[in-house]
C-alpha cells in the first residue's frame, strides 16, 4: 500500500516541481507579455486617446503617475520608450506649471516689497525647473534611444504617424530641457548642443502635415542662437508662417513658439501680438491633437500671466487670454454729460 502511494506520489511530485519551475520562469514571460500588450495597447489606443484630450492637467498627472509603471516593463524586454517620450513630456508640464506659479509668486512678492518671500519663490522656481528639465531630458534621450544613433543630418525612418509625433515631441522636449535647466542654474547639466541637433532633426518632419510646427521649432532655435540659422534665414517671418499654419490646422503650436521666442527676446510688442493672435484663433481646434493645442495654450497663458502679474499684481483674468490691462475699448464712447 505504502509503495503504491509512493509510486503514485512520484509523478505528482515531478509535476509539482515542474510546475513551480515553469511558474518561476514564466513570471518573466508573463511580465513581458503583459508589457508587450500594454505597450501595444498604449501605442494603438492610449496615445491617440490621450492626444485627443484637451485636459492638460489630466495628461500631466497621468504622465507623473503612469510613467514609472510603464517604463518598468522595459526591464523585462518590452519597449515602452516611444510612449515614454510622450509621458515624460506630459509629466514635465506638471513641473513647469508649478515653476510658473512660483515665478508669479516671486513677482507679487517683489511688488509688495517682501524680499524673503520673493527669494523663497525663486528657490521654489528653480527646484521645479530642475524637475521639469530632468523629465524633458529623459524624454529626449528616450527618443534618441529609439531612433538613434544617427549620423549628422541623417533622418530616422519615420514611416508611421506615431513615430513622427514621437520624434516631434522628443525634439521639442530637448530644447525645453535646456531652457528649464538654465532656469535651474544649470544643475541638470543638459548638453548645450541639443539645440543644434534639434534644429537639424526638425527638418525630418513634413512641415505641412505637422501644422507648420517643425519650421516654427527651427525658427525658435534661430532666435535663441542666430549662429545656427542657415544663411538668409528670416526667423520672425518663419515663425509668423508657422503660427498661421497652426491656426489653419487647429493646432496652435507655431503660435506658441512665436510667443516664447518673443518673450525670450524681451520683445513685448511681438509677444502681445502673438498672445492676441493665439487667443483669437481658438475655434476650429483639432480634435485629434487637442492635447498638443492645449499644451500650447498652457505655455501662452503662462507668458500672459507673467505680463499681467508684472503690471497689475494679478494673473490673466478668467477667460481673458488675449486681453491686456491697458486695452482701450474699441466701442465708441457715448457722451453721458447730458444725462448727469
Amino acid at each position, binding site marked *: 500500500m505504502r509503495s503504491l502511494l509512493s509510486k503514485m506520489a512520484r509523478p505528482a511530485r515531478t509535476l509539482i516541481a515542474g510546475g513551480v519551475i515553469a511558474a518561476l520562469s514564466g513570471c518573466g514571460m508573463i511580465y513581458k507579455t503583459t508589457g508587450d500588450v500594454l505597450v501595444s495597447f498604449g501605442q494603438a489606443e492610449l496615445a491617440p486617446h490621450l492626444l485627443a484630450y484637451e485636459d492638460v492637467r489630466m495628461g500631466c498627472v497621468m504622465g507623473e503617475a503612469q510613467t514609472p509603471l510603464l517604463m518598468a516593463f522595459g526591464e523585462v524586454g518590452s519597449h515602452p520608450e516611444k510612449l515614454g517620450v510622450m509621458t515624460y513630456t506630459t509629466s514635465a508640464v506638471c513641473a513647469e506649471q508649478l515653476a510658473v506659479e512660483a515665478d508669479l509668486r516671486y513677482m507679487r512678492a517683489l511688488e509688495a516689497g517682501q524680499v524673503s518671500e*520673493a*527669494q523663497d519663490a*525663486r528657490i521654489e522656481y528653480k527646484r521645479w525647473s530642475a524637475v521639469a528639465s530632468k523629465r524633458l531630458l529623459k524624454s529626449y534621450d528616450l527618443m534618441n534611444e529609439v531612433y538613434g544613433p544617427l549620423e549628422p543630418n541623417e533622418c530616422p525612418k519615420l514611416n508611421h504617424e506615431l513615430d513622427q509625433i514621437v520624434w516631434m515631441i522628443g525634439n521639442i522636449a530637448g530644447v525645453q530641457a535646456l531652457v528649464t535647466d*538654465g532656469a535651474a*542654474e544649470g544643475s541638470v547639466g543638459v548638453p548645450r548642443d541639443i539645440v543644434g541637433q534639434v534644429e537639424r532633426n526638425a527638418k525630418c518632419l513634413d512641415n505641412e502635415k505637422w501644422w507648420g510646427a517643425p519650421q516654427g521649432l527651427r525658427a525658435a532655435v534661430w532666435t*535663441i542662437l542666430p549662429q545656427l540659422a542657415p544663411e538668409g534665414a528670416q526667423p520672425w517671418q518663419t515663425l509668423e508662417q508657422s503660427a498661421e499654419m497652426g491656426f489653419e490646422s487647429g493646432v496652435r503650436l507655431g503660435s506658441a513658439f512665436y510667443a516664447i521666442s518673443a518673450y525670450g527676446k*524681451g520683445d513685448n510688442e511681438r509677444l502681445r501680438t502673438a498672445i492676441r493672435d493665439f487667443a483669437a484663433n481658438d475655434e476650429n481646434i483639432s480634435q485629434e491633437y487637442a492635447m498638443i493645442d492645449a499644451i500650447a495654450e498652457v505655455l501662452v497663458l503662462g507668458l500672459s500671466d507673467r505680463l499681467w502679474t508684472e503690471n497689475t499684481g494679478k494673473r490673466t483674468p478668467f477667460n481673458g487670454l488675449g486681453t491686456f490691462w491697458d486695452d482701450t475699448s474699441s466701442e465708441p464712447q457715448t457722451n453721458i454729460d447730458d444725462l448727469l
Partner: protein
Amino acid sequence: MRVFKALAMAAVTTVGLASMSAQAANTERTLCVFDIIGASGDVYNIMKDYKTQAAGWGVNVKLKPYTDEKIAAEDLKAGQCDGAVLTGLRVRQFNSYAGSMEAVGAIPSYKELQTVFRVMASGNASINKQLKANGYTIAGFAPMGGAYLFVKDKGIDTVGELSGKSISVMEYAPDQANMASQVGMSPVPSDITNFAGRFNNDSVDICFAPVVAYSALELYKGMQPDGGIIRYTLGQLTNQIVLRSDKFSDKFAAESRTWMLGQFDRAMQVIRNAENEVDDKWWIDIPDEDKRRYNEMLREARVNMTESGMYNKDLMNLLRKVRCKTDPSRAECTLAME
C-alpha cells in the same frame, strides 16, 4: 501742552522718515541685461535673483533682456537704461579699469580670477575710486569662462606655427586683432553671430572663444578631424554690472559688488558644465617651455597695449601682483614691468 507738542513733532518726524524710507524702497530703476539667449539665459537668471536682493537695498529693479549687446550698451549711454549687464569687452568704453579685465593672458586661472573679484568687492577706497568714473559705476563681476584658441590642425601648437594662419577676432576688441597681427596671423573681424560659422565652415584656421561656446555653437565640427583646443588660458571673459552713477547710490553699488562676488561659485557651475562637455581628445597640452614663451609673448603684448592706452595701467599692475602671489616663480615677478 508742551509734551503734547513734542509728541506731535516726534510723530510727524517719524511719519516723515517712514515715508522717506518707503519712497526709497520704491525707487524704480531699469537694468538692461545682455544675455545671448535672452530671458531664458544663465545671466538673466542670476539677475532675477539680483532683483530680489536689490529690493532689500531699497530699489525696485526692472530687468530688460537684450540679445544684442551693442544695443544694450547704446541704450545705457542714451539713458534708456539706468544700468546694464555687459561683457567686459564692452565695458571698456565706460570704465577702462574694469574694462581691461579681459586683457590677454592676464588672469591664468579661475583661482586668480576669484582673487581679483574679491579685491574689486573689498570696499577699499582706492579700488572704489577706480570703479566709479565718467558717470558710471561698476557694481559687480561674474565669470563667463576662460577663452582658448580652437585650431583646425593639432600641429598648430607653438607660437611660431601661428604665423600665416587666419583667426576670427571680435571686431569691437582691437587688442585681439593687435595681438594676432603681432604673431603674424591674419585677423578676420567677426562678431558673436558669425565667428563660429566661419570656423566650422573652414573660412578661418583658428578661432578665439570661451569654452562655453564649444557645445552650444558646435565648435567640435570645425575641429574635425585633426583640430583641437590649446590648453592655455588666453583670457578670462567676464560679465559686469555697469550703473549710471547718478541713478544709484555708492552704498547700493557696494552691496551689489558683494552680492555678485557671492555668485561666483554658481556662475562657475555653468562654466564647469560646459568644460565637462568637451571631449578630452580635443585638448592639446603644450610643453612648459612653450607655456613660458606664451607667457612672455603675452606680457610684452600687454605692456605695449598698456602704453598705447588700450589697457589700464593700474589694473595691469594689480593683475601682475595677483599672478605673482599665486605663482611667485613666474619670470615677470622679478621684472615689475606692468
